[in-house]
């Protein structure tokens, strides 16, 4: 069944359009517990969706994915709302970053660069599994065995900063300046590099703030929801590149894909899953890299058409 995508301005088979969402999510949330965008976006570009529309519509899908995951996380009590909000507040200082980004030469960056950015973002943004199963080992603080009695974790200088706030879910009593600063730095980074910042945020929440991994996952999901919603809104408002028909197909594909992946995942041990996941990421990265290095089949491409008045 062919359907015309009104913003991408081309017609495409329904299953072909939903495919990236399905495989992205079945491999992603279902199987490995990641968003799957790192697969979906390059796949969309590969099937011929204009890159700008692919990135924006995919952000729209991530909104749906993260609300689904958040439902689960919330019920398990893995979302530190207070931490999430404080981080978001810091993140909003990103406007400064956007000002900086204006001075960087952006126009001639190849699209693929941005996809590499998207890849890193998605790969790590969503890295910790939805339900956190077994991925704890990956990020567990190595100091745990030597921690002083009576304290949950080692205390550093940063714990002496003022404006202390209790984060119950995270079992932390730290200065609010820490998450705000973290949010700020990530905001600036994501504005300059065009990446989500999760690849900094997740390890930072675990190692710098000392949050429990399960809560990091839920809270990171909470973050992603807002970031993706923000990206979707801004893309729609400024560039008009969000194709809701495509996004809906991707979401529906994802809804179908998630349980397929989950069923597969149930049959495989966690180590095998993580190995598969890493392989997949490496494959996509290698593919993107060869795209950059290989002599392209056509040297020419067209920018946006401008109808002059």
């Amino acid at each position: 069944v062919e359907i015309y995508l009104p913003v991408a301005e081309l017609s495409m088979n329904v299953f072909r359009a939903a495919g990236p969402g399905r495989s992205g999510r079945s491999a992603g949330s279902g199987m490995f517990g990641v968003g799957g965008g790192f697969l979906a976006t390059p796949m969309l570009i590969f099937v011929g969706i204009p890159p700008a529309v692919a990135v924006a519509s995919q952000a729209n899908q991530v909104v749906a994915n993260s609300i689904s995951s958040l439902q689960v996380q919330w019920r398990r009590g893995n979302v530190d709302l207070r931490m999430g909000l404080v981080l978001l507040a810091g993140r909003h200082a990103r406007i400064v970053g956007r000002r900086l980004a204006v001075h960087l030469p952006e126009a001639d960056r190849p699209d693929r660069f941005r996809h590499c950015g998207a890849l890193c973002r998605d790969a790590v943004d969503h890295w910790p599994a939805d339900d956190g199963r077994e991925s704890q080992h990956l990020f567990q603080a190595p100091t745990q065995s030597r921690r002083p009695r009576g304290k949950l974790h080692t205390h550093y200088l940063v714990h002496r900063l003022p404006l202390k706030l209790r984060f119950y879910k995270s079992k932390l009593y730290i200065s609010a300046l820490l998450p705000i600063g973290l949010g700020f730095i990530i905001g600036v980074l994501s504005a300059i590099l065009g990446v989500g910042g999760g690849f900094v945020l997740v390890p930072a929440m675990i190692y710098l703030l000392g949050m429990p991994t399960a809560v990091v996952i839920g809270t990171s999901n909470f973050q992603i929801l807002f970031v993706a919603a923000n990206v979707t809104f801004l893309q729609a408002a400024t560039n008009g590149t969000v194709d809701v028909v495509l996004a809906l197909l991707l979401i529906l594909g994802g809804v179908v894909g998630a349980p397929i992946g989950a069923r597969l995942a149930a049959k495989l041990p966690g180590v095998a899953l993580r190995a598969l996941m890493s392989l997949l990421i490496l494959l996509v990265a290698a593919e993107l890299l060869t795209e950059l290095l290989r002599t392209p089949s056509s040297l020419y491409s067209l920018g946006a058409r401008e109808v002059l008045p």
Partner: protein
Amino acid sequence: VRSLGLLACLAVLLGATGAWAQGPRLESAPSLLPAPSIGAPPDGAVPPSVPNEPTTPDLIMDLSLARVSITSAFQGESILLFGMFDPPGEIVVVVAGPPARETVMRKQRFMGIWLNTGRQAFDDVPAYYAIAASQPLQRLLARSAGGEILSLEDRLASLKPATPRDAAELARFRAGLVEVKRREGLYPAAIGQVTVQAGRLFRVDLPFPSRLPEGVYDIRVYLLREGKIVAAVSRPLPVGKVGFSAQLAGWSAHEGALYGVGAVLMALLVGWLGGAVMRRL
């Protein structure tokens, strides 16, 4: 569609002969409208050497579809152009999409990776360009003087670059432009020849790909005798989104903020429902 088109062809043929017999020409027929100003080449209307009268007895044409409607099920369209001419002569059909500024980007290897390093904008690039004739085109065009009918190459050679550059480089960018457009099916290299039946009835299929820019397309049919244009008719073909597609595209273009809010709400709702449903399964 093809058989329908043929039927319509015959109907027009009969109607036309009937009209001839009775005297009055087909004034009311839509195919005999004067050349439209929209979608015309940049030099304006048809030059005076072309007898482009609305009631030319020598040449009439019509299309199997009056407009291209881009609906949710649009997959590209093939339109049959048909008509009749007073023999002898040859028929040339030129279809040009609405002009716009196009920017051609060229990749170059830079420190091992391929980057878009060069760009060149051209003004008045037709969104679509197709030309067909009842004889091999080169021969016809070589004989027809005046440069009214332009092959794709000639049409593009006249493009004005938005910024000056040396001729050799411009030619390379122009070739790049054709290459990309051809890949997208917008500059079809060969739309089939115009076929002529019974010496006076002509037809040709015009292919329009699914990735079709919107606007008013200009369709021109020329009648040539011994290399001279003796008659020409032209007709606008509107191409536009209709229905749901048009609504969405319109909101996306004009009500971006509202559309963005809607997109986010849709994702939240569907994502929530999807999550809830999946939990029960």
